[in-house]
């Protein structure tokens, strides 16, 4: 099952800079730098970011999981993390997320379900690119969410800036009193929890 990217409408479209008219380009040389890792699902040293080149970043979480069950506090039903990355200042280029792959494991009896979400936005912006997958029980296996942003819907960094991008992931077990379930963003394999691909173009 494939997730689908939805583009949430910006609140003040008229005031936003016009999207740069440009053509796709190979990414410049260099690496992203990690500005911040924060959230209920990525406390101290449970997250690894693998900076490959400017077209791809992998993130692995070992503690991003949500569960519901007897004695489990309500706050454990959802777990989230936001990773903030800054591209090197390269004049004349911009980029945006155009592909995301999440994977993990879920154990869901009949009558329960879980949801995994990937959202991204540039620092300050109300424009969110969002993909979601709902996993209904009965399910006890590795799951994934693969989403491709339509070419016309990529949210680009404003040209002439090097504004960081925020990459948020969250998983949740859909609440139902008495239900039991678990979902994680750790598949237990050597593969990363989240893989992002970035499109580049000249401004």
């Amino acid at each position, binding site marked *: 099952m494939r997730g689908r990217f939805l583009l949430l409408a910006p609140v003040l479209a008229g005031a936003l800079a016009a999207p740069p008219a440009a053509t796709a380009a190979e990414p410049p040389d260099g690496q992203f730098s990690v500005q911040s890792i924060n*959230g209920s699902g990525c406390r101290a040293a449970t997250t690894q970011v693998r900076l490959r080149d400017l077209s791809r970043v992998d993130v692995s979480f070992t503690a991003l999981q949500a569960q519901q069950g007897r004695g489990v506090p309500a*706050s454990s039903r959802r777990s989230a993390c936001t990773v903030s990355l800054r591209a090197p*200042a390269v004049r004349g280029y911009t980029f945006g997320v155009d592909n995301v792959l999440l994977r993990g494991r879920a154990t869901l009896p009949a009558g329960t379900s879980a949801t995994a979400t990937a959202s991204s936005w540039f620092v300050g912006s*109300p424009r969110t690119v969002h993909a979601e997958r709902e996993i209904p029980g009965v399910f006890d296996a590795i799951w994934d969410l693969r989403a491709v942003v339509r070419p016309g819907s990529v949210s680009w960094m404003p040209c002439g800036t090097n504004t960081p991008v925020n990459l948020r992931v969250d998983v949740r077990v859909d609440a139902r009193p008495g239900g039991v379930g678990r979902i994680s963003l750790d598949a237990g394999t050597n593969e990363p929890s989240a893989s992002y691909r970035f499109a580049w173009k000249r401004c």
Partner: protein
Amino acid sequence: MLGRRWGTAFAAFGILAVLFTTAEPGAATVRSIDPPNGQFTIDVHSVHGNGCPPGTAKVVRAGDRTAFTVTYSNYTAQNGGGIAISQRRAACTIAVDVGVPHGFTFGITRTTFRGFADLAEGATGRLDTQYWFVGMDVTGKIRRDFTGELQDNWQATDEVPLPEVMWMPCRPGGVPLNIESSLTVNAGRINPGTTSLMTMDATDSEVTTIYNIAWREC
């Protein structure tokens, strides 16, 4: 779904301020000149509140200081199911320095809140936001209500003009602005034994400089 009553009212105030200022004689010469140098900037000075205790909030800034993100790891309000009453409201105030460009101009801050709601049937949640410039009278509040049964991520954006800044266009340095948010949850009477909650993941703010109105030099 998300009201922006106060933002609209504030915009009207901003326009009044422009008219009044440009009609004021003697203080400065109103004329058509080149746009002011630079643009508004916005930067986080500090955060405080029970929704963002030390070590739980992180700040990411845009390189040109026209935007920032604050992320939270422990900003949750919850109620019902035996949760302590003290947890039904969580709040965080972001103290911001607004840098004012030289000359006379106009700016808008746009602030976006992103989070999650998990409300049982009959439970309600609330996002309250408030903006005020330190030492000034004008404040404003925006309230948004959420109603259970609901389990989803949410997002809300406020647009706040910066009219006060126009009264001090020649003031050196930054103008302190507070951005306060709070989440409040009421478990309600249908499912008082079920814990309902609201969480804030991130607050983003950006400032836009507008040059297409009258301005004057200091």
